[in-house]
């Protein structure tokens, strides 16, 4: 059985845990440095507010070891705030968090809550999937090695780079499990 560490500092992490357990994987929560000492096959960086998660990663001393794990090839599924944590650069913002993904993101790319929306679009290698965008970011530039996996309305909303899957939308909020399935295949 695959064991997946879900960063559980803030946001919609329980929804990811449910999706993973639906698919027969075992999810456990990462809340402090010591939780990273367990052995596991993949990592989920969930949705929430990236400023909150980034600050807690620093305060709790988890940022450096997480970055080292991802650089070492640990498979990652990052959604919304997770995408921002993973991004190499943030448009119009000095902040850098884990920064292992060679791409540039724009926070709140669709504006405030009134700009949140639902769509259905192609995800490379899967087909049409439901996509929920909540105060979502988008990817303004997929850098070297980052493959565009989905676009909506001309904007890049998912990229994959090595074993990193980074999405601007929320697969954990819809019942379609194919995105998580694809991630678990990476973590096999």
């Amino acid at each position, binding site marked *: 059985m695959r064991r997946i560490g879900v960063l*559980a*500092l*803030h*946001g*919609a*992490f*329980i*929804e990811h845990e449910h999706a993973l357990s639906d698919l027969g994987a075992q999810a456990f929560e990462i*809340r*402090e440095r010591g939780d990273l000492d367990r052995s596991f096959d993949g990592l989920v960086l969930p*949705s*929430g*507010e990236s*400023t*909150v998660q980034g*600050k*807690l990663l620093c*305060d*709790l001393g988890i940022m450096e070891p997480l970055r080292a794990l991802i650089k070492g090839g640990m498979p990652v599924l990052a959604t*919304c*705030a997770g995408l921002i944590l993973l991004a190499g650069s943030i448009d119009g*913002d000095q902040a850098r968090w884990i920064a292992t993904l060679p791409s540039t993101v724009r*926070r*709140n790319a669709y*504006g*405030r*809550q*009134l700009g*949140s*929306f*639902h*769509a*259905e*679009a*192609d995800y*490379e290698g899967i087909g*049409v999937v439901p996509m*929920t965008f*909540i*105060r979502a970011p988008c990817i303004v530039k997929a850098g070297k090695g980052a493959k*565009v996996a*989905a*676009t*909506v*309305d001309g904007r890049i909303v998912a990229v994959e780079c090595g074993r990193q899957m980074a999405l601007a939308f*929320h697969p954990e*909020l819809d019942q379609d499990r194919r995105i998580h399935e694809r991630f678990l295949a990476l973590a096999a």
Partner: protein
Amino acid sequence: MTNTNIEAPEKCEDRSKLNRELAQMLKGGVIMDVTTPEQARIAEDAGACAVMALERIPADIRAAGGVSRMSDPAMIRSIQEAVSIPVMAKCRIGHFAEAQILEAIDIDYIDESEVLSPADDVFHIDKTKFKVPFVCGAKDLGEALRRIAEGASMIRTKGEPGTGDIVQAVRHMRKMNQGIARICALREDELYEEAKQLEVPLDLVRQVWKDHRLPVVNFAAGGIATPADAALMMQLGAEGVFVGSGIFKSGDPAKRAAAIVQATTNYADARLIAKLSENLGPAMVGINEDEIKLLMAQRGE
């Protein structure tokens, strides 16, 4: 990349799911009351997952007395410009015109709040008519389900605002949990009578019975002043906390705010919370429940 189909989320019923989902994104976080862009930045830097923009924090509203209304839209805008996290604002209970104004300035969440003077002593706002989400206070399960039936996308306890006294928030959270546990223990054919007793729609009672939880996210609010208060509420089942007067009425707001954020995340780690609670400076002074004349939680049932 073909087959793109964006559903224009114009109809209000389409928005209700998106609005509940925004509350899901706030879980495990701390929403802080702020009155200026400077305070909003301090809150964001300390790890707030959203800020509540208002002219006066509840402790000052209580001290000032008189009628308390929606804040100046220019003031709310200055806070929207200062931070990148969601910005909430309060309107009076039943004052749908204030809510329309807040929607027009693109607010992320409206708190139909008992902290302000109620505009209607019978009716709450029909929140299903709005595209923006609403959070409402509730003292027990019946009140929570009535607000959800009216379209609230998020619930919070109605702990006595501006007092620094946690007792009512604890009471409300326990009553909520007891109400849910009671429904879950019922036979399916007993749900009709329960809906009648609670004065709420049957389908919501049935949903609680099935899911063993409220249909929307439930935060703690009112009287939270220390990291230990936040940990207490989280252990009682809150999915996050609002901190009003507790931060900017204390000695060292930035440090206290950051400590409450960490305590909300790692609410079961007493060793960590002990460390977080060290040298925070004076907490807000606070008033006891029996020392106050005005119980705001009784506004709007």
